[in-house]
């Protein structure tokens, strides 16, 4: 039966409805959350062990796609337990939404058809609008409204982009477009690139499209912010990665300049804005923008043409770049979601940097592993963020993009200021802050910090990714 390949998808969808149905009888967060977690784990292992390299319906499943699907499942798993503390009631709808989002994300990971990509992406988006407003406080609603308004603009840009892409290539299927060698330069393809970048750029929070992100991350419940800045962002990132790699043949050097400039603006803006901020969640929001800047360096590399000055063949550095993007994604989930979840330790609604003073006195392990994740964001060795950045910069250099690597490294030096500022504050002794040491949050932070450390020595994972980094 051909549907045996879709067990994971069927499981996620069914479990979503079961969760909703169970909501009639119970609103116990332990039962519902536990069920969701088990379902996600099951889907994770089904995807991990099932056969690769086949296509079914419009899904095209390779090791590369499976890896992203697994990453998306992880990005949901990490928020399930912390959200028990953030969400006040109606757990059934919340967890069902998470499962439906997971379903959409997995479909997005597997498909190469622009229509299906668009629909599954909207599935993720609509789910997150609801999640942002879930607690119905004034802050939540305001954040959700901003997010919704901006995202619908993004959606229309996406539709336009897809339409222009169809106009130039006569196909919605990215694989077919990639196979069509005689594409040549095409003005409408340029428009497609611009529109698609703007559309998905809203989700990734690339520079001119970033304004909503800070307010929304600040206003949403902490675990929802954690999900928005990791899972929600990575979906759009992966779609754009596929789109650029397959939809635009390498001679299009404008892809390179477009993304090089965007990357520089994005990381510089994110880092400089974060320096002057005192609201902790907003600092993390700005840092999320800066990280997006590093991540889209990969797009710039993909668009970079082969010149004689380039040291290795284009295939090699693009493969390295994609492998570092994949490594960055997994490290990013832990190092970014962890600090956002740690914000739940603070008992106030609006988390200022003073609120974290004395964390090390209250629980030194939590403070230590929070520091580990922040160090990872800063790219300090022995953390996952370091290896991701190391190989990203390495692929920039072997692609002969010195100046871009230098700019990125200088930015990463600037970013140390504000990450270390948070660490310093959390290690200050004075201050009478009271922390919410619920085990769900505390141990989530510690475990995610440990995983970040473990990723810091996973050289073998990187070389494995370099092997499967073929879209």
């Amino acid at each position, binding site marked *: 039966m051909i549907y045996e390949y879709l067990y994971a998808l069927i499981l996620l969808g069914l479990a979503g409805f079961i969760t909703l149905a169970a909501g009639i009888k119970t609103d116990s967060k332990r039962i519902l959350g536990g069920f969701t977690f088990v379902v996600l784990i099951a889907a994770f292992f089904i995807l991990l062990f099932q056969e690769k390299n086949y296509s079914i319906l419009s899904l095209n499943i390779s090791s590369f796609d499976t890896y992203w699907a697994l990453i998306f499942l992880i990005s949901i798993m990490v928020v399930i337990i912390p959200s028990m503390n953030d969400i006040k009631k109606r757990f059934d709808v919340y967890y069902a939404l998470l499962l439906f989002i997971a379903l959409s994300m997995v479909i997005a990971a597997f498909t190469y058809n622009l229509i299906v990509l668009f629909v599954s992406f909207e599935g993720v988006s609509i789910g997150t609008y609801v999640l942002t407003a879930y607690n119905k406080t004034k802050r939540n609603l305001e954040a959700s409204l901003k997010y919704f308004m901006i995202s619908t603009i993004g959606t229309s840009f996406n539709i336009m982009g897809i339409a222009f892409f169809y106009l130039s290539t006569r196909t919605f299927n990215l694989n077919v477009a990639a196979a069509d060698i005689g594409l040549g330069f095409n003005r409408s393809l340029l428009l497609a690139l611009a529109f698609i970048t703007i559309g998905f750029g809203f989700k990734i929070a690339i520079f001119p499209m970033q304004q909503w992100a800070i307010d929304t991350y600040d206003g949403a419940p902490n675990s929802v912010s954690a999900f928005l800045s990791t899972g929600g962002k990575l979906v759009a990132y992966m779609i754009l990665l596929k789109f650029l790699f397959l939809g635009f043949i390498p001679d299009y050097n404008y892809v390179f300049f477009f993304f090089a400039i965007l990357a520089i603006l994005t990381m510089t803006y994110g880092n400089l804005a974060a320096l002057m901020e005192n609201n902790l969640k907003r600092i993390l929001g700005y840092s999320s923008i800066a990280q997006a800047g590093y991540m889209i360096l990969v797009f710039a590399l993909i668009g970079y043409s082969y010149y004689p000055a380039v040291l290795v063949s284009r295939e090699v550095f693009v493969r390295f770049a994609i492998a570092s993007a994949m490594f960055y994604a997994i490290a990013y989930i832990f190092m970014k979601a962890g600090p956002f979840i740690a914000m739940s330790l603070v008992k106030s609604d609006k988390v200022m940097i003073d609120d974290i003073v004395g964390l090390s006195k209250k629980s030194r392990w939590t403070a230590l592993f929070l520091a580990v994740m922040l160090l990872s964001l800063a790219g300090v*060795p022995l953390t996952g963020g370091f290896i991701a950045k190391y190989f990203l910069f390495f692929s920039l250099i072997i692609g002969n993009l010195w100046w871009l690597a230098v700019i990125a490294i200088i930015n990463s030096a600037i970013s140390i200021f504000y990450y270390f500022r948070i660490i310093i504050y959390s290690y200050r002794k004075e201050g009478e802050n009271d922390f919410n040491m619920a085990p769900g949050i505390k141990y989530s932070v510690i475990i995610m910090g440990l995983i970040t450390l473990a990723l810091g020595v996973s050289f073998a994972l990187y070389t494995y990714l370099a092997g499967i980094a073929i879209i």
Partner: protein
Amino acid sequence: MSFFAGNQSKTVSLVSLAILTVFFIAYSAFEFRNYTGGVIAYYNTLLAQFHASGITINIDFSLGLTGFTDLLVIISLFITMFAVLMGSKSHGAYFYGLFMAAGFGLAGLFMVRNFLFFYIFWEVVLIPVFFIIGKYGTGNRERSSLKFFIYTHIGSLFLLLSIFTLSTYYFLNTGIFTFQIGDLTALSFLETVPTAGFYFIIFGFLLAFLIKLPSFPLHSWLPDAYNDAPYSGTIMLSGGLVAMGGYGLLGILYPIAGLFPRALAYFIILLGLISIIYFSFSALFQTDLKRMAAYGSAAEMAFITIAFGTALLSTGYVRTLDLSGGMYQIIAHTFVAALIFASLSMLYRRTQTSKIYDLGGLNRELPVLSSFLLIGMLASLGLPSLAGFIGEFSVTISAFQSIGLYTLFIVLGLIITAAFYIWAAQRFLFGYFNERLGRLKDINKQEFLILFFILAGTIFLGVYPTLLFKLLTAYASHLGGLI
């Protein structure tokens, strides 16, 4: 391990460090009986490998020792042990854990023979020290620790870029991506690197190492960090961390330095000379003992810069003497700095101040401690028969062969150093006793033993240098043979 030991963490750290040190000294005595230079005790393991479409990435973890790095590992274990020993009882397990982490990073840095892990260890040392200053320091500690970190981190980012460039060029030659130090610093390979690329590489390396050393224009993290760190941290900084810069210059950079332009050598010597004179003058104008000792220590480290520069110009026996003098200076400096800062720490515990004008005539109340302090200062200015002399003397006489009468600037620096130490000693050790300090208790037996062991080491290094000098000369002449 010390993180978990709770109240016993100090003892646990000390015992484990002592066992390690004894074991390592025994091991190296065995390995280095008939040392002739080069890397021995080599260990290599392939962590991950990727092989496809004509490229290979190898990620190795490899360790190896030379005569020089063996001694550096010993002193890094020693200085960690000493810094832990000087930690006060009020500090918790965390404090000692950080020191153990920094010591681990130091020893790893000196042993490792792979640039990827070299960089990792390089940063692993920084982070615990950042926390030590930021959490347990005094004064404006948060700002100082951040300044220290930013300075050294910018250096290390350029180090990272240089490493990347090196391995990229290596890939062009061989089709293999590797970060092995031995492969990447082979002269046969480096001669094929284009000049512009090579200059970029040495710029990155030099920047990182000179910041760490610290050399003249890149030193402004030093006084703040030394001053605001707790005394154990200052001992770690001055004894352990600056040795990283020295090792970088003489151990990593020197083997490839045969390809340096001569103008760069003169520039490095100039930096060294300016450093000596500038730091000595700065020390002269300090009113705080800790700050003064910090500048004095930096002036001592400038000899290594000079040794590196002049060794580029000289040949044959002079170069061997120059190099081994510079290496000896690193090791001696560790002991001298430990002696000075430990005595200052004990002094501070008694008087609660380190301002020269608040002290005075301490010799009356604290005869033993002030003798130790005086000997430390004399060692720092290079009195014969104490550790500092051997290195400074070898560097000075061999510098004379390369730069001639400009050596007088070194001598001038030495004179100023002598001047400020003697001036300071006159002020706070002799002269009138400042009665406001009240009755002071001289050091107890335990403290005496600690200082005595350091002093014994210092004198031993000054009187019988052959034991270590033999290893260093063997390594240095081996390096000379390479170029």
